[in-house]
């Protein structure tokens, strides 16, 4: 189930500087995540979890240290290649959903593919993309909400839209930064179940930041971040906790075989 190494961070340092004030956040973070693994990151608020996710996801550059993805260094790539990576290999889910307010659910989900294709390419890719987006929305239980604007949806629905958007580009690695942090417990559990299903059935590698230790304890492995370093990384548990399937998730979320 858990395969070879997918991403590795080595000795990551990050200090925020504003005027003369330095805020050291990460002071040498080392860890790796394997193919098919569901990794959770926990730690007190403000300890740099989001910062770490941003560094791993090439949204920001470390002051020192390296990030490897499929054994290739990615933190120092030119921005066009980093854009390419984020578009094709990574998916992001944020605490505050971060959907584009002017676009409908369907358009939001389609956005990564629209960014991927040129205008002309989009004309040919369009119908397949729309079908895929509709399928994904159906799988996360939003088949009836495709033409709604974000302001017309509940928090759970927004986050499931964001998940569908993160998945439409068939990412190898999904970053989830407190995906349940803004939701009530049962909705949060629903989202979490969806993520777990993605990992378990579709084999998506997930790195998830969470404050919920119960949830974290059901992932393969948990990293505790404190004082800018990895405090403890428990080995992958022998037994994966049973979970309850979301009733709306009837099958694999990921389109396999194209």
């Amino acid at each position, binding site marked *: 189930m858990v395969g070879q190494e997918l991403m590795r961070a080595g000795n990551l340092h990050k200090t925020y500087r504003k005027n003369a004030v330095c805020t050291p956040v990460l002071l040498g973070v080392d860890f790796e995540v394997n193919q098919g693994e569901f990794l959770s990151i926990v730690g007190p608020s403000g300890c740099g979890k989001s910062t770490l996710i941003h560094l791993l996801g090439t949204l920001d550059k470390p002051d020192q240290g390296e990030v490897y993805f499929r054994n290739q260094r990615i933190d120092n790539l030119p921005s066009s290649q980093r854009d390419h990576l984020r578009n094709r290999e990574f998916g992001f889910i944020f605490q505050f959903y971060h959907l584009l307010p002017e676009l409908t659910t369907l358009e939001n989900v389609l956005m990564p593919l629209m*960014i991927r294709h040129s205008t002309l390419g989009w004309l040919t890719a369009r119908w397949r993309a729309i079908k895929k987006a509709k399928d994904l929305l159906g799988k996360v239980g939003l088949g009836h909400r495709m033409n709604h604007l974000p302001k017309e949806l509940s928090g759970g629905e927004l986050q499931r839209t964001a998940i569908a958007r993160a998945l439409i580009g068939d990412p190898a690695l999904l970053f989830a930064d407190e995906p349940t942090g803004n939701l009530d417990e049962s909705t949060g559990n629903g989202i979490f179940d969806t993520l777990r299903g993605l990992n378990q059935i579709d084999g998506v590698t997930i790195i998830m930041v969470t404050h919920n230790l119960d949830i974290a304890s059901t992932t393969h492995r948990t990293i505790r971040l404190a004082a800018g370093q990895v405090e403890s990384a428990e080995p992958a548990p022998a037994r994966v906790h049973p979970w309850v399937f979301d009733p709306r998730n009837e099958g694999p979320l990921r389109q396999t075989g194209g």
Partner: protein
Amino acid sequence: MFKVLLCWKYLRTRFLALACIVSVMLGVATLIVVNSVMGGFSTKLKERLHGLLSDIVLEAYDYDGFTDVEGKLARINADPFLKQEIVAMTPTLEIFAMLQFNFRDAPFTRPVRLIGIEPEGRKAVGGFAEHLVNPLNRKRPSFEMTEEAKERFLIKRAARGVDFPGPKAFVNPNEPPPPDPPPSRPHDPQGIILGYAIGHFRDRNAPAEVVNKDVRTLEPGDEVIITTVSGARLAPVYDRFIVTDYFKSEMSEYDSNYVFLPLEHLQKLRTMEDRVTSIQIRLRDFDQAPKVVEKLKAMFADAPLEVQTWEQKQGAILAAIRVEKGILNVLLFLIIAVAGFGILAIFSMIVVEKTRDIGILKALGASNRAILAIFLGYGLLLGLVGAGFGTLMGLELTWHLNDIEKFISKITGQDIFPRDVYYFDKIPTDIQPMGVLLVNLGSIGIAVLFSLLPALRAAMLHPVRALRFE
């Protein structure tokens, strides 16, 4: 693809964008209207002036004029180049004069410009016959009275009881009296063609329903007295004349000054024999004017004659129009620049408002260039839509300018375009496609230029800072 979608969505959902569009639209519309009117004024004025003035004028320096017209014409015709380029020539005698008449029993006096012409020749040179009010005269200009004019003239004369100074027979007492004196035919005064504005005035107090507000002060057949000066000695001379027709060029300067009469009559009145003050020349192709002027100047270098094209004669007014147009355009482009600053301000606000969305797009893999393209495209779209509507509005306004002017004049009771002040009885407009195109390109360019700064800021936004932005 997403760029187009987002531009479109931002355009449709941003009320502020409407402000940008409206400001560009108003700027473009104003520029088009003003340029059309200015262009209309200047082309119409030039057209009129050129229509009235012959292409080239060979002119004496003083009122006494020059002799030997035939010889000069022959000299000109002897030159093969000039003969080929010149279509028509006609001698003219011009002099200031005073015109007196009675209207409703009150005496009126007007300063006028007397122009002695050969009607056929003047017609060939142009700018005369086509402006005559009597359609018959347009075909074959003459100074003859129409039947009605003659009737009016006779009735008025009879009412005044003036005896006709017919040719007096000389009686010699040594000879028998002549058998039957020939039937005394009254000696009719010479006919003249009067500038339209001399024989009419506009009744400003006329009720609005009256379409033609022009009140005639001199009918065809009415008598006037013209006083001017004789040739060499500049002694006052005068004669009675009869109005036969009107000259209506709609150039108020000419319509209110010109009085045409036959050349020989004016020469006789001024005792100038065959002297004239100028020779009017019409060219086959006005582009050849400088060459022709050169040649004529060389030919008459010894004589006290001035050779000028009509443009040189009217240099001051034409230059004034050009300068006016240039300054106006600079000022008006400032309007669009103001619209540009509006775009700058509004775009900056939109970029701030969209900071988080920009971060999201970058997280999803959008490049900096793509973000730049979104906002530049947005600016372009605003410019296009604004300029498009502005052009429509400008053209529409220009086409209905006279109706609008009438409407506003009616509402405010103020004459916005007092016809007798300007040269025209309608606001002339001339829509120049090149000008409209330039205004469009300029304003779209300004819209894009001013959106460049906010767009660059958006493109340079750090994705993390944008995502953390609240």
